[in-house]
């Protein structure tokens, strides 16, 4: 038993040292200041999450609909090209009004301002409850999309 404990100690030490070296090298925040994204992930566990690279891979497909869950002013100031606007507060009040905009088998990618906004999760959960299955939240949100110079557009409000 003594030997087993010694082996566990050696393996744990190596794991901890390599783990912390990786944290140091990659500059990972061990105790993050903002944990909203984890709170949303915990609150809405059944919603699938996508990052920018994953959205880029699929967003040009025919079956994909991009939904901007922010308010109308933010949408008019800039949004992902071809995204449709479903403001989360309007969707909460009149969900039926927006359901004709897409089909049940569409892949729906919803976004808002990134990791610190809940609007996209609210719309995503509402759509899940209405029977839509292929629902994703783009976690990096519009600021990251715009920052990377990916296709976006503005419309007059």
């Amino acid at each position: 038993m003594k030997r087993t404990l010694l082996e566990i100690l050696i393996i744990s030490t190596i794991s901890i040292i390599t783990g912390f070296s990786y944290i140091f090298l990659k500059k990972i925040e061990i105790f993050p200041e903002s944990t909203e994204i984890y709170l949303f992930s915990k609150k809405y566990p059944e919603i699938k999450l996508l990052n920018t690279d994953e959205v880029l891979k699929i967003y040009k497909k025919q079956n994909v609909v991009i939904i901007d869950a922010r308010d109308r002013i933010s949408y008019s100031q800039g949004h992902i090209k071809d995204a449709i606007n479903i403001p989360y507060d309007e969707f909460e009040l009149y969900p039926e009004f927006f359901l004709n905009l897409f089909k049940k088998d569409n892949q729906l990618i919803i976004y808002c301002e990134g990791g610190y906004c809940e609007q996209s999760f609210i719309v995503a959960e509402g759509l899940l409850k209405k029977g839509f299955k292929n629902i994703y939240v783009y976690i990096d949100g519009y600021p990251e999309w715009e920052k990377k110079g990916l296709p976006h557009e503005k419309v007059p409000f």
Partner: protein
Amino acid sequence: MKKFLFNKIWIRVLQIFLGILFIYSGILKILNLFEFSLTVAKYGILPEKLINLFSTMLPFFEVVSGFFLLSGFFIQGASLIISFLLFIFIAAVVYVVSKGLSFECGCFEILGKEPKTGVLLILRNIILMVLSLNVFVSKLKKQT
């Protein structure tokens, strides 16, 4: 049966299988740390502040233990750590299933598809834990 369970070749096969599996699983998590941390959050077990630390350290325990199991050194320690990790995974999935939730488990993909939390995943992890304990007991027996 007893003879088979403690057979040298069988134990070596288990070591290679579990070693490769855990190295693969750990590396996948390290390559997608942020996604893995979001999945850890979905389980709703850890406080948010500890999620980054846990989700960064766990894959390193998997890779290092897997490496030792594969290499043939410190087999007792490595197999016991892997059994303990699997026990934690089983407990976490049981907790999530008891709450009626189902989402991609954050473990590792099989044939390009990641399994969802559910009874099948619990069964899979129980089998893996039994196999890992099989290695541990056989090495312990050999030592004594």
